[in-house]
């Protein structure tokens, strides 16, 4: 334990000397003729030893003192004692967040419909070998409904192309966000399965969280001491984080903030207070959910179809990422030609509805509705009827999860302060892409591009509200944390962002130094409300060896 030290050799020589000098001075004053200079018997045996033990006690007191402060205790993180850190945290009602493994479902594609048993140790490893998963239980793929008698029995169904498939649940072998693979990620089973053709992630894997780092804990201590109540900003955030542990970041916009436009509905257009917009980021990148949804034909000649989303379908959704024919294994999407957002603030039994007066004002809240029109170039509409003909499509929608639950939570009559009006909003998204050219020295080996990609995405997705920019230097530093001094990042870095404004328009931002969020306060857009999102797929890394002439 770091609070103990009886190693005399570690004491500060100057401090010991200072203690010794005080005692020597007293002896000199008592008898000026007494020799207490260094080397004398009394100095060596009495004065110095007393000084040594006194300083030892002082030293241990200082250690005790520092053990009461997380800041001091962790100034040398390598030697910080985890038990001391956890003790300090307990005084602030903060517990280190445990690591959690990512989980999801894997689709197993077979060439034949044959019974396929697998033990609870069956593994699936990504094609690049970076992450592996184990099934959550023993499963058996069965060929008939009659054979399904337990949760481990999974029905094998037919798939396009004369193939067959069934689904199993898996969990990442190593905790952390690295296991949050995207939909479609392909796997290799071990041991190999009979009639095996393919295995891929059915949808985005979620819930992977690494163990909380000390800097993260330091940032959270203020939340720990705060009352969990709708009170000042810190208390309110603390309440939300206690009840929604996955919540990554919160920004409260209130009276006097330029982004607060809901309280300016009076004659003078002046803010009147009483309203709060709660911008939330509930995960690193938006969750892309895949579903089957019915669309209605709106234009035969233009082959336009429309998807209508109620406020309860994908609450606060960002956008439709893809629309494809149902059960298609194709990649890409039909062209989305329009995305019109509206507002549904009709009563919800037992729930307070915040005052939102414009459709744009309702964007990214759980009260928005959407009509998304796309062009289906494959379906023959000759025999169909506009406004009547419907067809199912596979869609992928990006959202911040838990938005409706958060709104219900803050609007609850148990928590809402009288006279206040809280509206929860998903962080306004700035989708980032990043292109890097990284040079490395052959003699030190080839850097792991996947590790670089993971670190860069983690860094960007950890940027908090209020940080004014996504700086290129942040990315360069992150790359160097992987490659060390054995390479370099070529400048300029290709850094681009697409800011999806409430109201539907997109603003492109790009710079060689940093992405800076433009401000549109009338839409609530500022650095306090926008979050940078960077997915692994949007990080392109061109690894090049340093040639002789470059050295």
């Amino acid at each position, binding site marked *: 334990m770091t609070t103990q030290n009886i190693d005399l050799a570690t004491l500060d020589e100057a401090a010991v000397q200072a203690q010794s000098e005080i005692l020597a*001075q007293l002896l000199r004053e008592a008898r000026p003729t007494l020799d207490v200079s260094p080397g004398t018997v009394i100095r060596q045996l009495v*004065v110095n030893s007393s000084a040594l033990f006194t300083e030892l006690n002082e030293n241990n007191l200082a250690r005790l003192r520092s053990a009461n402060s997380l800041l001091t205790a962790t100034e040398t993180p390598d030697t910080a004692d985890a038990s001391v850190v956890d003790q300090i945290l307990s005084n602030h009602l903060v517990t280190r967040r445990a690591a959690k493994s990512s989980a999801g479902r894997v689709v197993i594609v077979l060439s034949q419909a044959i019974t396929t048993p697998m033990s609870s140790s069956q593994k699936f490893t990504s094609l690049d070998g970076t992450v592996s998963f184990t099934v959550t239980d023993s499963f058996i793929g069965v060929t008939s409904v009659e054979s399904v008698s337990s949760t481990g029995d999974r029905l094998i169904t037919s798939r396009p192309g004369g193939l067959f498939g069934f689904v199993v649940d898996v969990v990442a072998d190593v905790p952390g966000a690295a296991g949050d693979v995207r939909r479609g990620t392909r796997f290799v089973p071990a041991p190999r399965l009979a009639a095996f053709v393919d295995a891929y992630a059915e949808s985005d894997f979620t819930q992977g969280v690494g163990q909380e780092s000390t800097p993260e804990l330091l940032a959270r201590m203020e939340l720990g*001491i*705060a009352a969990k109540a709708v009170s000042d900003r810190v208390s309110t955030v*603390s309440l939300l984080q206690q009840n929604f542990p996955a919540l990554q970041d919160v920004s409260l916009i209130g009276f006097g903030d330029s982004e607060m436009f809901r309280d300016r509905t009076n004659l*003078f257009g002046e803010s009147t*207070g009483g309203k709060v917009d709660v911008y939330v980021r509930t995960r690193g990148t938006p969750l892309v959910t895949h579903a089957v949804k019915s669309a209605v034909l709106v234009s035969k000649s233009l082959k336009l179809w429309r998807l209508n989303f109620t406020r309860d379908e994908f609450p606060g959704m960002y956008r439709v990422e893809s629309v494809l024919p149902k059960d298609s294994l194709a990649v890409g999407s039909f062209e989305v030609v329009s995305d019109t957002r509206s507002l549904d603030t009709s009563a919800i039994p037992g729930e307070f509805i915040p005052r939102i007066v414009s459709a744009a004002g309702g964007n990214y809240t759980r009260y928005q509705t959407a009509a998304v029109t796309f062009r289906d170039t494959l379906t023959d509409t000759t025999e169909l009827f506009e406004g009547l003909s419907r067809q199912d499509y596979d869609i992928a929608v990006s959202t911040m999860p838990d938005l409706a639950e958060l709104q219900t939570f803050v609007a609850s009559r148990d928590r809402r302060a009288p*006279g206040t009006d809280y509206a929860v909003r998903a962080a306004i998204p700035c989708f980032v892409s990043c292109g890097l050219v990284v040079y490395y020295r052959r003699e030190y080996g080839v850097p792991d591009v996947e590790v670089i990609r993971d670190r860069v995405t983690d860094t960007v997705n950890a940027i908090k509200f209020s940080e004014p920019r996504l700086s290129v230097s942040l990315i360069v530093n992150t790359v160097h944390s992987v490659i060390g001094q054995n390479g370099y990042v070529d400048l300029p870095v290709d850094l681009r962002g697409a800011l999806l404004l409430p109201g539907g328009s997109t603003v492109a931002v790009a710079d060689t130094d940093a992405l800076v969020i433009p401000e549109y306060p009338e839409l609530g857009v500022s650095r*306090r409300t926008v979050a940078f999102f960077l997915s692994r797929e949007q990080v392109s890394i061109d690894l090049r060896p340093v040639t002789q002439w470059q050295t």
Partner: protein
Amino acid sequence: MANVAPVFPNGDLDRPQLLAALPGSFWTELFSDKDITRALLSGLALTYQQAYSNFLEDFATLSRKTVPVWHRQLWMPIVLRDSEMNRSDASLPRYGDAITYGQAGVYYGVPLTREGLFVFPLETAGLQRITAITDGITSAKLALVNGVDFVFDAEAKALQLFANPFESEAVPDVRYDAEGLPVRELKLWAYCTDIDDDRLWRNFGYVLGLRFKSSTSYRRMINAVWDSHAAGASYAALKELAAAATGIPLVARRGTVELIARDTRSWHVVTDDVVYTYPATATPTVSPGDQLVPGDCPVSTLHVDDLAGGIPDDIEFPGLLLDRGFLGDGYQSALFFANKQVPLEYVGIDGASADVRFEVSGLAADVELWWERVRERGIDAGRTLADVLDTRQVRNGPPLPQHLPQQVNPFRIVAELMASNLVLVSLRAGEFGDGPGATALWTLRKVLPPHVACVTLIRLDARAERATLTDSASDSPAFGAGAEVADESFSVEEFMPVAYVVPDI
């Protein structure tokens, strides 16, 4: 108790006779070197006394309410060299000193020599204050007292003595420097020194992300924010935080004012229970016999108006300066709505509605934009400002000038709408104490519920100046010496209203 007080004797450890008796009569009566025994025991007691002081400090550090601002070192050796007297960087003139470069031997980068002032560098890390300086611990020929014989300038790390210590009875050592030249050194002892070891920040401030120079005001700020977080936002926490930032105390306990007294540096408001001390520049706002309750501010430095209870008739707020945080986008700067009666201007009838305006200060384009928007909103809503101000019982068509008030108060008109969620904090900068000051007012955002705003007014009281108007040019006043005989004189004593929203954190 956080520190061992500079009193003597401070317990048994300061009683040499008692300590000397501890080993038994042989050592105190028969042993030939019994003075050494006594010195040794006294010395050990002294080191324990320091340990005890440290222990008390650490004990007090357990609580944010009692954490010591500074560490106290009972005895600390210091060395003064005659070669450094008035010759080190500690003697350099600094910006803000009342001096003029190029005059009276004052030159940039040249140490300043003042008659009767002997300046030595003292660069002990964090040293803030020295109570006394002696040339011995138990007996001294030289004893200097803070404020009487010396002062220590912590910022300049300069010990300023009022007499040359090398001309005192203290005996300097002589050593020789690298070039073989003699250097006289005085080895002295600093008693009861206060050292800033960043204890407030390291133990509590970092949790809140609040970092200021160590002071009692900083500790109060930590406690105000902590209280707000732990117990919920409160008016008390808001006012305490504002008071702490400005470095003035609020009334802690209920009491009756017994006396108000002033010395050269401070005002003292004395109740039957507590003495509250304020800068001499402040103006007491209470009188003997007044009842004080916790949270009161008995001087003019700080005043807080929570408008949720209504706008007081006698509110002393010169007006509201509203920026785009309150007005929305499109404005280049802020608009000022004065708290005074101004004429209501009848612009005329535009279509089916009357158009009226009143005085709003700001950039002309911003003022025009604001009025345009007011008019558009009024027409859109079917009720313009003129309609709102219409005094008729029965309304038939747009109001005419005689149907409207002749004067309005712009401040009250705009403040009335936001009053339920608005707190006004008025401060006088010239009366601040030792707090971090106006730059720390951003912390108010930490204790405000987000649906509430705080507008802060900082009054910059200008120094009174006497101006003379000459009879030859009565429209161009001449200031200062050499002015002609005055026909009339006036004093300029104005304040500069500065109001702003607490910025984001």
